[in-house]
């Protein structure tokens, strides 16, 4: 009991006035933060067991030989075989993210600042369609749509936009970028548009009264305020695109391809966990770079507040 009495004053100053009302005794004995930890624990345990542990295992086995000793052989071999694919992966994901950023700000901006109600309604109805279309379905769709004899070329030839000889298959890096942008833009645009909708309109109206154009309002007033949401959305899509195996597998299976395809190949064809994990380590490094950027950004944000 004395320890309990001693523990109480430490927790009291931090609680708000309303908590002074009589509560269940149990709530008093267990400090507030401990309840929080207990409630969060099962969810955290899931992440620890089925994500962090295999993640650690993959990072460790990237640097272990088949005999269990430490070695750099896997990493060296991964770079020897797949350095082109690594550059290819990074280029595709960066390009797609940039396009997603531009398009989603454009869509969100028009939804927020657009003056024609009909056009805004049409756009709102139109842009979200790919949002919940699974990657694998999008991949299959694009595989038949972008092929040399796919519907896109057929329609372009049929309407006289291109000659039959000009029809080219887009089933290479372009197809992967198209599929990624097609699939991810609505996701980021939905987040961005939501953040823009909850902005305080008064600064926008003030700028408009002062004669600022819509592009300027978007660039100088709206986008800076929703930047945290945009960044979170872009990081989520960056990593999603880095992890999606089905799209490159179905659209661009030949070399150079993305390292996810290489990892599956090392496992399925060779049972080579060492090189596969080394490739995984490279993909972590790419994601880590973005995460580091986000944390820095978040710290700067926190400092500004």
């Amino acid at each position, binding site marked *: 009991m004395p320890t309990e009495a001693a523990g109480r004053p430490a927790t009291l100053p931090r609680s708000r006035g309303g908590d002074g009302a009589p509560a269940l005794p149990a709530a008093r004995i267990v400090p507030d933060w401990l309840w929080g930890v207990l409630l969060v624990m099962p*969810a955290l345990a899931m992440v620890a067991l089925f994500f962090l542990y295999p993640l650690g295992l993959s990072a460790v086995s990237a640097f272990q030989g088949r005999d269990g000793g430490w070695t750099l052989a896997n990493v060296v071999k991964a770079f020897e075989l797949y350095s082109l694919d690594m550059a290819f992966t990074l280029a595709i994901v960066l390009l797609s993210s940039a396009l997603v950023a531009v398009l989603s700000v454009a869509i969100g901006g028009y939804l927020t600042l657009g003056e024609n109600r009909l056009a805004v309604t049409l756009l709102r109805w139109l842009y979200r*369609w790919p949002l919940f279309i*699974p990657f694998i379905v999008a991949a299959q769709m694009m595989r038949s749509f972008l092929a040399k004899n796919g519907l896109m070329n057929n329609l372009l030839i049929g309407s006289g936009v291109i000659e039959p000889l000009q029809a080219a298959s887009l089933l290479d890096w372009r197809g992967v970028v198209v599929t990624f942008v097609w699939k991810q833009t609505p996701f980021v645009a939905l987040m961005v548009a939501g953040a823009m909708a909850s902005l305080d309109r008064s600064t926008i109206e003030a700028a408009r009264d002062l004669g600022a154009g819509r592009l300027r309002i978007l660039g100088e007033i709206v986008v800076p305020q929703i930047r945290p949401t945009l960044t979170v959305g872009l990081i989520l899509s960056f990593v999603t695109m880095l992890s999606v195996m089905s799209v490159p597998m179905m659209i661009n299976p030949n070399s150079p391809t993305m390292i996810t395809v290489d990892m599956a190949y090392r496992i399925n064809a060779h049972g080579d966990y060492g090189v596969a994990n080394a490739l995984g380590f490279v*993909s972590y490094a790419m994601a880590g770079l973005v995460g580091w950027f986000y944390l820095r950004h978040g710290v700067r944000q926190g400092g500004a507040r």
Partner: protein
Amino acid sequence: MTSFIPTRALAQTFAWIPRGLALGVLAFVIFGPLTNLGLWAVAEKWYFPHTLPLQYGFSFWERVFAPRSNAMASLATSVTIALLTVAACLAVSVPAGYALARLRLPWRGAILLAFLLPQAFPSVAVYINVAHIFYTLGLNGTVAGVVLVHTVHGLVFSVWITAAAFGAVDRSLEEAARDMGAGPLRSFFGITLPLAAPGVMASSIFVFLESLDEFTGTYFVGVPDISTLPLLMFNAGMGGNFQIAAITALILLVPSVGFMLVIERFLKADVLAKVGH
């Protein structure tokens, strides 16, 4: 003054040219691939250089919807796995979301970030090792193994959206209930949870769809016994059977597009703005 009004009307009419063009291109980009999929689903014969299918019919649908077909078995497996995943996610993320929204937690930001990790790291290498571990535990090729993988993947949606939904509930309502003598559990189940229900529902639908559409984890952990719809579609598409692939894809699309049409009823702007904060 007389010439001002027609000019403005004219300008408004002409403003529809770039607007209409942009919306038209967007519509083509979005619906082109979808139309293509729809055509493949009803095409009996379609080959180069014909713009449209030569013959339409439903014989492939009969094959897919035959009671003992692979597709029906995969659909049942997919739905079972998705429902179990939602249950598992809710069981851990309702308490976690409440704690993150309401209680003083040490390292709150780090905890939120921990749930993002499964989506914030490229997952293929992790799945390879999960499969390696599950193989020794006898979980490879079982529904339980796939559910565990999908649950961890879905936690970011369920925890973050649930926390945002709890955070958007007006605190003073809870305090009023507490002042009137309701215990913490009663005020949670009587006030907080019902008010946050649309957000919790939205998070569940996200988890359900995420599980229904998940491919990579199932590809590595589900082998050789678990075949979900995405795996069936992948095999059909890679095998060149575009009709079966298109029909399977359409089955996958129904719940997804249905949700898209109603999402804003569940996910209000005030909740959306709090996600991840």
